[in-house]
C-alpha cells in the first residue's frame, strides 16, 4: 500500500466516522425537532423495521433465507407480555429474558432445520411461521385469536444521576428503541468484521468451501441464527410494551416478508442497506396513506420497479447505473 492509498483510506475512514456521528446526532434530536406525536410514532416504527431488517442482513449473507422472523418476534413479544402480566416481573427483567427465550427456541428449531438450504429452508421457515401463528391463536394463555391486552408500558427506571425515567411519552419510547437499534447494529457490524463474519460470508458463498476451510458449519450457522433471533425477540418485547396489545394478526408471514423486502431493496452491500431500505419503505407506506385504497398496489409497483432497476438494492444502484450508462455508450 502506497502512502497515498493509506492516507486516502484513513481519510475515508474518518469521513465515515463523522457521518455516523452526524447521523446519531440527528436521530437523537428528532423528538426535540419533531413535536407531532404521530410523526414520532412513525419514527419509532421505522426504527423497529430497521432493527428487523438489520438482523436479517447477516442471515442472508450466510445463505439462510428465512420467512420466520415474525414468529421469533412473536415469541419475544408474548414472553415479555406474559412475564410482566402473569409473573409480575419488571419489564427490565422480562426484556432480556424474552430475548433469551427466543434464542433458546431458535436453537431448538435451528438444530434440525439448519441442515437444509436454499428454497427448502425458505419453505420450512414459511411453515414454521404459519404453525407459530396458528399455535398462538389456539392457546388460551396467549389470548387466542382475540389477542392479549392490558400489557403495561415499559416500567419507569431510576437512573443514578438523572433521576427516574418514565416511559409514558412517545419520546421516551423512541429513545429506547433508538438505543436498541444502535446496540443491535453495533454488535452485528462489529461481529461482521471479525473472523466470525468472514466465516459466515464463506458459508453463504459455498458451504462445501467453508467446510474445506475448516469452519464448523453447524455451530456457526446455529450461533448466527440464535443471535439474529435474539435481537428479533428483544424487538418483540419492545413491540409488546409499546403497542400494549398483541394479536396473531401482527405476526403473519407478511410480517416476516416485509423486513426481507426492506433489506433487499436497501441492498446487501453493507449494513447501510437495510437501514436505508427500512427507512425509505416505511416512510413510503406512510406517505401512501393518502391514497389508502391503492396503498398495497402502489407499494407493489414501487417494489417491482426498484427490483427491476436495482436488483442488488439501492445502495448498489449508483455503481450499477454507472455500468449501465457506460454500457450504453459502447464502453465495456
Amino acid at each position, binding site marked *: 500500500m502506497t502512502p497515498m492509498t493509506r492516507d486516502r483510506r484513513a481519510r475515508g475512514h474518518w469521513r465515515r466516522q463523522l457521518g455516523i456521528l452526524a447521523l446519531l446526532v440527528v436521530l437523537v434530536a428528532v423528538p426535540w425537532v419533531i413535536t*407531532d*406525536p*404521530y*410523526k414520532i*410514532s412513525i419514527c419509532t*416504527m421505522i426504527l423497529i423495521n430497521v432493527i428487523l431488517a438489520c438482523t436479517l442482513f447477516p442471515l442472508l449473507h450466510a445463505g439462510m433465507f428465512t420467512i420466520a422472523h415474525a414468529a421469533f418476534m412473536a415469541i419475544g413479544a408474548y414472553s415479555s407480555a406474559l412475564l410482566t402480566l402473569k409473573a409480575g416481573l419488571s419489564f427490565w427483567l422480562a426484556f432480556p429474558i424474552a430475548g433469551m427465550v427466543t434464542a433458546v427456541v431458535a436453537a431448538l428449531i435451528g438444530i434440525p432445520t439448519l441442515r437444509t438450504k436454499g428454497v427448502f429452508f425458505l419453505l420450512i421457515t414459511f411453515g414454521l411461521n404459519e404453525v407459530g401463528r396458528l399455535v398462538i*391463536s389456539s392457546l388460551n394463555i396467549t389470548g387466542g*385469536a*382475540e*389477542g392479549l*391486552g*392490558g400489557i403495561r408500558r415499559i416500567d419507569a427506571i431510576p437512573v443514578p444521576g438523572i433521576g427516574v425515567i418514565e416511559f409514558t411519552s412517545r419520546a421516551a419510547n423512541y429513545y429506547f428503541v433508538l438505543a436498541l437499534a444502535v446496540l443491535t447494529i453495533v454488535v452485528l457490524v462489529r461481529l461482521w468484521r471479525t473472523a466470525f463474519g468472514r466465516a459466515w460470508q464463506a458459508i453463504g458463498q459455498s458451504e462445501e468451501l467453508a467446510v474445506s476451510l475448516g469452519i464448523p458449519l453447524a455451530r456457526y450457522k446455529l450461533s448466527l441464527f440464535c443471535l439474529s433471533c435474539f435481537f428479533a425477540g428483544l424487538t418483540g418485547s419492545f413491540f409488546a410494551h409499546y*403497542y*400494549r*396489545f*398483541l*394479536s396473531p*394478526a*401482527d405476526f403473519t408471514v407478511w410480517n416476516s416478508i416485509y423486513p426481507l423486502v426492506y433489506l433487499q431493496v436497501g441492498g446487501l452491500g453493507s449494513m447501510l442497506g437495510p437501514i436505508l431500505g427500512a427507512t425509505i419503505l416505511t416512510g413510503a407506506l406512510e406517505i401512501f*396513506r393518502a391514497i*389508502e*385504497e391503492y*396503498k*398495497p398496489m402502489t407499494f407493489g409497483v414501487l417494489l417491482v420497479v426498484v427490483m427491476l432497476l436495482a436488483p442488488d438494492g439501492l445502495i448498489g444502484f449508483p455503481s450499477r447505473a454507472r455500468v449501465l450508462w457506460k454500457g450504453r455508450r459502447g464502453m465495456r
Partner: protein
Amino acid sequence: MKGKRWTLSLVALLTLFLVVTSVAYAQTTEVLKVGVPNGYTGSGASSGLPTLKAYKIQADILKQHGGFTVGGKKYTLDLIQADDGYTAAGGRAAAEKLIFADKVRFFLGPLSSAAMMGMLPLVEENKIITMTNSITTEKFKTGCRYIFQVNPQGGLVLASQVMRIIQTNNVRKVAAFSPKDETGRQNWEQMKTGIKQVWEKEGADRVKIVHEEFGERGQSDYTPILAKLLATKPDFIILGAFAGEAPLIVKQSRELGYKGAFANPMSPDPKELAQVAGAQNVYEYYSWGIVWNDLPKIDIPAKHAGIYRKLTDKFGKEPLVEFYQRYKAAYNEDPPGAIVYMLDNLPLLVLALEQANSFDADKVVKTMESWDVWPSYYGTGVWSGDKTTYGIKHVATKSSPTFKQQGTKLISTGFVMPELVP
C-alpha cells in the same frame, strides 16, 4: 333635495348590505372533521368501503337539512378515513394518524375488535368519543367512558329471535358452527344463554345443544366439518357470525341433506346468499337486518314522539326511506346488509354534540349518558350494559328488524327487542 335622496339611498344600501351579510354569516357552515377508522384494504375492504359510503350519504342528508348547531355556529361533517387493517397495530396507526395528523376528536368505528383494542390507549389518553361497532367486552375493562357501542351484540338480538324460532318451529336439537375468533365466540355465548332461558321456562329436555363447532374464516370447503356436525342430526343450525362464508356453509349443508333451519347474526347480502348457495337451498334462513324493498314501518309511541323528531329533523321524515333512496341514487345499488348495524353511529354523535352544545369530550359523554331513551333508525333505543359482562352503560339496546329468507325473497319477521342477559 338631491342630497337627501342620496343619503336615503345610501342608508338603504347600507342596511341591505348589513342584512345580507348577517344572513350570509348565519349561513356559513363550519366543518367538523370526523374520523372513520375501518378496514379499507385487503379483505376488510368489503365492509369498510360500503360503510364509508353510507356515512357519506348520511352526512349529505344532514347537510341538506341544515346541519347541526354548536355554540351558535352551524356545522356539517367531513369524513376522514383511515385504514386499520383489522389488526391491533393497524388500529393504533389509524388512530394516531386521525388524532395527530388530521386533528380529529370523534370516531365512527372501528368495526374490528382487534383494531378497537389497539387504539384503546390513544382513545383514553386523548378523550376521543368513539361510536364503535366492535363487540368485544374487553374495550370497557379499563373503564374508558369515551366509547359507545352503538349496536347490540348480534348474538343478543338473535338470542331473542332464536328463542322465538325454537318455540314456534318446535326445535329440539340445536347445533352451532362459529368462526374461531372473538366475534364468533361471544355471539355464540350470547345465544347459548338465550337457549338456556328457554330451558328454564320449559324444561331442560325441551331443547338440547347437540354440537358446538368452531372453524376458521375464509375457507371455501366446510364439508368435512359439516358432515361431522350433521351426524348429530340437529334440526336447527346457528351460524355464529360467518358472513361471506355463510352462503357456502348453507349450500354445503343442504347438499349433505340438511333440511332444518339456519340462524345467523351477521348475514351476508341476501342476493349473494341466494346466488352462491343456490336459491333452492335457501329456506328457513333467519337473520336480522333490513328488507330494503319492504322497509318496515316504524311505530313510535306518543311519549317518544318528541325525541324521535330530533332524528327526523336532521335525517328526513322517514330516515330509513330517505337513506335508502339516496344511497341507491348515488351508487346505483342496494346498501349492503352489513350497513344495518351502523346507521345510528353518525346521528347519535351529532345529536349529542348539539345537545351538549360543546365539543368537550366529557360534556358530550355526560349528555349521551343522560338520555333515558334516544331515537334510532329503527325506533328508539336505550343505553344498557351495566348489568352484563360489559360493566358500563354504554352499549345500545334497540329494537332490531328481523327477517326470514326464502330463495331470493326476504320476509320481514318483525322487530325484536333484545332482552338483557344477566
